[in-house]
């Protein structure tokens, strides 16, 4: 074989090659790159100038606790911290028990806690100790979870009990002296947003499953009722449903039953979310092979047994990603309760803007509210994606 003379190959590694390949490969890519740089410059320069000179970020620091817990009585704040600590413990414990599946959420929580410690230290807020304690609890429970036998049982029980306990802690009770009741009109800020998200999602799941089963039922009346309900709810905006829940619902209840504003909003959110989750679950039900039904029948299981023991577990597993997505979108959608006069993050932002010393700080306040939603969603998406990967759901 004779040696063929070849030119040295074009540089394919290193920053210069990367730039050439990804930014300036063709003439139109050059144009696009220049256009993008120009656009970025035009957008970022005034934004940066504004953020560093003109913006009055003091409004955020002065009102941080309003954003987080709103009007919740300040002497009762320890209850909120208690729910945070319990959450940290549960997350750590789940990490220890379920290992890789819960690791994404655990790492996010750990990182968020550490970030809050650093931020608080930087601004010299005294809450840094609480966040440090939360991180510490998380790690301690991680090791407990690693060692403990029958951890899965305890972790499941813990999560099932957690939400009722949070509800009790936040709302308080007449019968417990150390937990005086906090009326729901004081639940506000991020606290209210999170409560509504959790109640809306978990409250809607049973109803959504029933509706999905109803929609796939062979009985025409039940099927058409489910279809009608789902399509009615999905055809109208959430605002109208919340409006209905807040204005019309009291008319449908007995004269002496008057749920408060927050409870009415929760009912509205549950009804709304149920219709959407029903469609998610229906997707899972449709994905199940006929063979599963036939095998269950061959084993002599009744219809109800087939559904509960064979079909639903597989269907729900298949739709975990969709349920995570609807969790996130409901988190965003809870902002609409601001329209029916509930003080969630959005409405709290509006009320902060009404303070006389912070007039005209719309951009600062709304940007901070953006960051709250965005950071939370990002963290949740990261955690749920790691969990989906570990469980291998939604793939097959």
């Amino acid at each position, binding site marked *: 074989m004779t040696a063929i003379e070849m030119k040295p190959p074009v540089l394919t590694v290193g920053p210069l090659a990367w730039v050439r390949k*990804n*930014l300036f*490969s063709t003439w139109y*890519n050059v144009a*696009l*790159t220049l256009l*993008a*740089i120009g*656009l*970025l410059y035009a957008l970022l320069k005034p934004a940066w100038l504004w953020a560093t000179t003109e913006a009055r970020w003091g409004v955020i620091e002065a009102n941080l606790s309003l954003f987080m817990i709103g009007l919740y009585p300040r002497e009762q704040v320890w209850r909120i911290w208690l729910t945070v600590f319990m959450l940290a413990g549960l997350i750590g414990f789940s990490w220890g028990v379920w290992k890789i599946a819960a690791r994404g959420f655990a790492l996010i929580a750990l990182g968020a806690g550490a970030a809050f410690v650093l931020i608080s230290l930087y601004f010299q807020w005294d809450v840094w100790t609480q966040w440090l304690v939360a991180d510490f609890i998380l790690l301690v429970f991680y090791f407990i979870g690693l060692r403990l036998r029958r951890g899965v049982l305890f972790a499941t029980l813990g999560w099932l009990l957690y939400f009722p306990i949070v509800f009790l802690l936040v709302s308080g009770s007449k019968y417990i002296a150390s937990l005086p009741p906090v009326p729901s009109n004081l639940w506000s800020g991020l606290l209210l947003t999170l409560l509504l998200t959790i109640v809306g999602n978990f409250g809607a799941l049973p109803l959504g499953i029933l509706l999905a089963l109803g929609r796939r039922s*062979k*009985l*025409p*009346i*039940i099927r058409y*009722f489910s279809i009608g309900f789902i399509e*009615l709810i*999905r*055809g*109208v*905006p*959430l*605002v*109208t449903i919340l*409006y*209905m829940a807040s*204005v*019309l619902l*009291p*008319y*449908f*209840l*007995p*004269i002496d039953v008057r749920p408060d504003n927050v409870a009415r909003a929760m009912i509205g959110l549950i009804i709304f979310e149920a219709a959407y989750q029903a469609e998610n679950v229906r997707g899972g039900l449709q994905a199940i092979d006929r063979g599963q039904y036939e095998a269950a029948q061959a084993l002599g299981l009744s219809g109800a047994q087939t559904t509960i023991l064979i079909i639903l577990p597989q269907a729900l597993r298949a739709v975990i990603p969709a349920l995570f997505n609807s969790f*996130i979108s409901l988190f*965003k*959608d809870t*902002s*609409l309760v*601001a*329209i029916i006069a509930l003080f969630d*993050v*959005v409405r709290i*932002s*509006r009320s902060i*803007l009404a303070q006389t010393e912070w007039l005209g700080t*719309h*951009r600062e306040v*709304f*940007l901070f*509210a*953006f960051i709250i*939603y*965005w950071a939370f*969603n*990002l963290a949740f*998406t990261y955690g749920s994606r790691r969990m989906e990967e570990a469980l291998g759901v939604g793939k097959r």
Partner: protein
Amino acid sequence: MNIKAFWRDIRFLNILAQAVFIVALVLAALYLYRNVSANLARQGLTVGYGFMKNPASFDIGESFISYDPSNTYGRALLVGVVNTLVVSALGIVLTTIVGVAAGVARLSSNWLINKFAAAYVGVIRNTPLLLQLMFWYFGVVIQLPRVKEAIELPGPIYLTQRGIYIIWAEATSTFPAWRVYIILAIISIFVIWFALRSAQNRASVPLSLWWSLAYLLIPVLIIWFGALIQPEPPLKPIVPELAGLNFRGGLRLTPEFAALLFGLVVYTGAFIAEVVRAGIQAVSRGQVEAARSLGLTNSQTLRLIVFPQALRIMIPPMTSQYLNLAKNSSLAIGIGYPDLFSVAGTTFNQTGAVIEIVVIMMLSYLSISLFTSLLMNVYNRRIQLVER
């Protein structure tokens, strides 16, 4: 054990289950009806649509049909419906453009463009629309400079805190005479379309792209012929001009409308970008490779192979994004644009006719949703793959 007993017969059980369900529904409805009538009686309210004929006596900030406070509630609600329809229809058109552009940018091999689109989609999709609308309205639109220091964009378009002024067109005196030519031009387009389609059906190879120019050329010729005969063009531009404290002429978008439209377009565009990206990525690589091996060029591959298939995948999720946009326009109340929801809310506050208002509201949104999905379903059926 008597296996033929009727209570073991699945047909009987099915009927029984449905009968029980109906009875439960009727009982629940009766219970609710009793509560409603008790509550209404206690407040001294009656149900009926008589109030629709009473004068509304509240003003509506902007309206695309004539309205003044002496008009009836029915008229006021109609104004709200029209406002919702206008912002939704405009929004759907604009958001498609934004979304497709962002979706294609998301697939660009250009790193900067790609990341730019990714940042847009990531930020917009993860924050609530209501907050975005408030940001655009309170943080941007009403903080624009005063009329005297208006920002001028090419067009000209003037951005001011009193609204956005856009160059617009006005019918001239010859407009009626021009209609003939315009109608002729439109008819010619249809004729060409039919002719080309039947020619295409008979030919074995795709017609060359040049034939498509006929679409442009013949209507242009007709219009040109009109221009030779008529003394004046049918439309003349009206440029907004500063006159005293305000602009005169041109089209004015109120700050509320501008913020709402912009917010809805930007928000839905991010979702459509993901739909477009997923649709294009879902076309299997083999299709592209097959097209290449048949000798199609890059643009032919995109136009003839990838895009038609991606479109089929994209239409259903696109439909639901359009529906979302129409439904999300109800957030207009957060920034004071008088859409259906906000007008209905005011009407309720004044009349107390809660049930009637909710029914009107629900029915209006439902019919908008149903009509949109009907249109999209018809379109969907047309472009679906016809299999043997």
